[in-house]
Each structure stands twice: as structure tokens, then as C-alpha cells.
């Protein structure tokens, strides 16, 4: 089981989970991390795997010093996803903590 960094500790509660799903190709991590770096978003953890010939990357990032808000980030990643022909989504970490942790 791939375990991602513990998200339950302190850290401002302003972390996002970015998921990238699609056919594997060159430059996926570079493309996504460029968008994040350009906007002051710090990557805390990256986990990638291949599931049924699909590339799946789960990335946890900290938005405490980000120059944009989550909605704008989603829009940026959406258009990057279209460019790469992959599905890129960003969601607040609370969704996952709430659903999977008591």
C-alpha cells in the first residue's frame, strides 16, 4: 500500500490533493510541478503508479504561501490537463480526511 505523508498534523489545514490520471507520456510531473512552482505552491509528497496502463499520480501540496486560490489553481490544472490529454484535479485535503478518518 502506498502511504502518503501524514496529513493530520498541523500545517495550516491548507493542503490540496492533486490527482493526475491518464495514458502515460513524457513530461507529466514536469508540467504539473511547473504550474505549482510558478504559483508558490510547495509539493509535500508525490506518489505515482501505473494502474491498468493508466498513469496515476497523487500529489500533496501546501498552499499556505500560494499566490493563487484553489479555484484558480483548478482552472490552471484543468487547462494543463487538456493540453496533456489527462485528467488533473485538485481538491482540498479535508474531503479525504473526512471520508476516511474518524
Amino acid at each position, binding site marked *: *500500500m*502506498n502511504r502518503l505523508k501524514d496529513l493530520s498534523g498541523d500545517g495550516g489545514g491548507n493542503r490540496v490533493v492533486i*490527482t493526475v490520471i491518464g495514458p502515460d507520456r513524457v513530461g507529466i510531473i514536469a508540467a504539473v510541478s511547473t504550474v505549482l512552482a510558478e504559483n508558490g505552491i510547495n509539493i509535500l509528497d508525490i506518489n505515482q503508479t501505473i494502474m491498468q496502463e493508466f498513469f496515476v499520480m*497523487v500529489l500533496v501540496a501546501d498552499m499556505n504561501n500560494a499566490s493563487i486560490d484553489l479555484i484558480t489553481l483548478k482552472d490552471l490544472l484543468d487547462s494543463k490537463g487538456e493540453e496533456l490529454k489527462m485528467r488533473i*484535479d485538485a481538491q482540498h485535503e479535508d*474531503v479525504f480526511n473526512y*471520508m*476516511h*478518518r474518524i
Partner: protein
Amino acid sequence: MLTTEEILETIKMVQEENLDIRTITMGISLRDCSDADHKVACSKIYDKITRMAGSLVKTGDEIAREYGMPIVNKRISVTPIALVAEASTAENYLEYALALEKAAAAVGVNFIGGFSALVHKGFTEGDSRLVESIPLALSSTERVCASVNVATSRAGINMDAIAMISRVIKKTAELTSENDSIGCAKLVVFANVPEDNPFMAGAFHGIGEPDCVINTGVSGPGVVKSAIKKAGSADLGALSETIKKTAFKVTRMGELVGRTAAKRLGVPFGIVDVSLAPTPAIGDSVAEILEEMGLERCGAPGSTAALALLNDAVKKGGAMASSYVGGLSGAFIPVSEDAGMINAVNVGALTIEKLEAMTAVCSVGLDMIAIPGDTPVETIAAIIADEAAIGVFNHKTTAVRIIPAAGKKVGDQVVFGGLLGRAPIMAVNKFSAEKFIRRGGRIPAPIHSLRN
């Protein structure tokens, strides 16, 4: 520590299994809007709703995007209008319905509930006026929903109210005959109505509620069906365990979204309604859950037992996930809004009588059922009375949302579109209850001991 599997599970639930938050419903008290002059009252109502709910839709949309969790509907429930309008001298309450419609349109919600009266023990002048105004109110508006509570386990069943509301249902069907009698899809007759239900058409803002509150309703039949499928040939105890775990996850989303919305809107959080609410979308069906459990078709013998297990497991999982569970909380079995139910009716597996039996073990009742337009008023009243009896004598909520589709007969169908779906006209028992209904009066409340 979150795992990649957990993250992907959540994403799959939303993208493939139709997990969504069905509704964020803002409850607004209109008790401070009463006025002897109904024009003044209506203007106060419009002002208060637009003031309180002005950013409801925007906030809901923002939360949906940030969490990647669709929030299908943003809605409003208000104090039963009979209580607000009673102080005025207006002969009928159509203007109040128009004020609600205008306010709902202004803030961008698709339904507003609360054109309602509580008449389980009897009518005040305001209650009568409201009920008499329902046909015109529902045929003159798109967004306004009406409900009437005709029975409680403490007061018994008001058979005079049932007779009256049955005439109102017929009249509403006739006034909206051009649109397959859609008016009746916006009218619910309750027994033991909950005061914090966020789901339409039966939502209203109860009198024990605060000035303004946020309630959420979750959905998730597709997620439950998929979990059962994965459980393979597990026995029923293990299946219950699977459903509980799934309901927990689904309810947590309702809790998160509700609390976030309440915080951002600066109003208290009320409850999560832990309901399995189907939609006409493929795979988002409660009937298909029962079929996945092993029934050839929903409505087959065994359906009541399967539904009882499902409903109980959903409640148990949901109650663990949220401290404030309320509303209807259970599995809904509306016919027109559930593709599996529609199929079951079409192949002859599901009848009104079997649906009635199933409502004894799940939430709500005979919901979104289309029947022939020439069904006698007394028969409609008797169907409502039967359903109310199930609720009152089993100490649970039941309701009837029935559509006597004007000009239609068995074999035809009504088409409403959207979440309301389409419904085949179902056969109704031809034998009469006329003399029974004509007796009128109130069926006394059941004894609360000697329970068997």
C-alpha cells in the same frame, strides 16, 4: 495517513458512481414577516429570503469546486406559510406563493419548500385558506413546493384533512394537465412530518428551528450498489457491514459540506439527512441496489426484507458519521425518479400494493407514483389514509406524492424531465372506499404501550 487507494476510492465514487451532495437547503424562518396587509407581508418575505440566501448558490458552487464534490441542488425551506399568512385578511394565499417564487428566482434556487400547513388535529382559518390555495399556487409557479401534515402518532389521522387534500390533488392535476399534471409532483401529504427535512418537495422550516439554518441531504445509491457488487456472494450480515461503511463515507461528505457552507454563510449547521436519494441517471437507483442484493426485479418477494436491511444499515452508518442526523434519513423509493423502479413497474414486478408494504420499512412512502386521471377522489384519499396509518402506527414518517395524471390511463406515462423523471401510469385497485372516506372524523392516536 491517507493512502493512494483511499484517495482514488473517493475520486471513483464521484466520477463513476454518481456520489454527490444532493442538496444544501437553507431553512429560513418567516415568522417575523406576518402582517395584516398581505402585500406588506409578501414584500417582507421577499426581502428576508433574498437577504438571507443571497449568496447561497455562489457559496455552494464554490464549495463544490474546492472539494471536487458535486452539489446538485441549492434550495430553500421556509416556515409553513399558513402560519405566516394567517394574520392577513387575504382570501387566498396565491400572492404568498408568487412572492416565494420571485424570491427563489432572484437567488437562483430551483425549489423553495414551505407552502405548507400542519393540520393533523384540525384546521385553523389560515390552514384552510392555504390548502384551498394549493392548486392555483402550484399551477402558477415553477419552484414553489407544498406539503400538508395530516397525521401524527400523538394526534391520530385527520381523515377530513385527507379528504380535502385529495380533492386538492385532483384539482392540481387538472390545472397542470398540459404538463402531465406536474403540479402534483410538488405536493406531499405527510404523516409525522420532520421539521428539518432538506429534501423537496416536502421541505419546510419547522417552528422549533432557529432563524436560519443549513441542512444537507446526501445521495449515493450508485456507491452503495457498487460496494455490494464488490462484496460478491457475501452473506447478509457481511452485506449490512459493507453498506454501513459506505453510508459512513457518504454521510461524512454531507457533514463536511454542510458545516463548511454553514460557516461561510454565517448561520448554524442543522442536520445531515442520511438518505439514499436516487435520480433517473443510470446506476443511481435504489431498485438496482435491491437487485444487486439478489432479487430478479425490485418488487419481487423479498423486496421488503432487502429494503429493511438496506435502510437500517444506511442509518447505522450515517449515525456514526454525523452527530446531527435528521430529516427523513433512509432509502427513498420514488418511482419516477429511479430508472430501476420504472423498469420494475414496466415489466409487472412492482405494484402500488408492494410499494406500500416496502414503505413500512424505509423512509418516506408512496412517492412520485402516477395513477390514472379518472381515479376517484375517495380512492386517492384511501391510499393516503393507508400510508398515513403505516406511519402513525409504526411511529415513523410516511408521505404520499401521487399524480392522478389528467387524461391518462394505465399503459401511458408522464414525463417531467430533470430530477423528477418520468413515470408509467400504475394500476389502482378498482374497489371503492367511498363510504369509509365519507365518514370523516379523526382516527384516534394509537396506544403507546402493548406494542406488538
